[in-house]
């Protein structure tokens, strides 16, 4: 069913990322995101958003990547469940670093660092 398709999209997106094919990864994660939304599955929705962010980062599209990494934070806020936030803060900061906006990067790294000792 849809859930199986979702899981397999996430898996294949990950494999494309590993094999340095971020454009193909992006398409898989995009489908996964739509599926996760229609299934109302926030955990998988976060995974898809993170995957989309990572795919765009690998392609040097840092502004768009920030959009998707921020989506992870938004889902956390919506669900009152903050798994994945540490990684999202770190990734957003990495993107701002690449864009040369060290001030903004610092702000997000501070959030990232504050969470390193939590689980």
């Amino acid at each position, binding site marked *: 069913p849809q859930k199986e398709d979702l899981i397999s999209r996430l898996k294949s997106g990950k494999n494309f990322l590993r094999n340095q094919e971020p454009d193909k990864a992006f398409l898989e994660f995009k489908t996964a995101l739509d599926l996760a939304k229609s299934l109302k599955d926030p955990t998988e929705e976060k995974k898809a958003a993170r995957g989309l962010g990572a795919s765009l980062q690998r392609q040097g599209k840092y502004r768009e990547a920030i959009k998707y990494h921020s989506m992870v934070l938004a889902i956390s806020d919506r669900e009152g469940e903050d798994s994945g936030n*540490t990684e999202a803060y*770190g990734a957003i*900061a*990495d993107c701002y*670093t690449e864009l040369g906006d*060290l*001030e903004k*990067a*610092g702000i997000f*790294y*501070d959030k*990232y*660092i504050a*969470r*390193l*000792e939590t*689980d």
Partner: protein
Amino acid sequence: LETVPTIKKLRAYAERIRLAELEKCLSKMGDDIPKKTRRAVDDLSRGIVNKLLHGPMQHLRCDGSDSRTLNETLENMHALNRMFGLES
């Protein structure tokens, strides 16, 4: 702010190690790893890396209000660059 790129490089360095060791671990565990196990192992790898990085990361950030702190922060950065080979 000069230390920001070092934070990024140190994160990437640690993540490479984490992923390599995680992959080795999963391949040793064979196929059909229960989801609970898969999740626990992932958390373990993140937990160790994050807790080990916490101290250095914190000491790469300073509010820059007094120069002693700023100098120490830069010394920390130089030491981390040397120790983890982050400049190359």
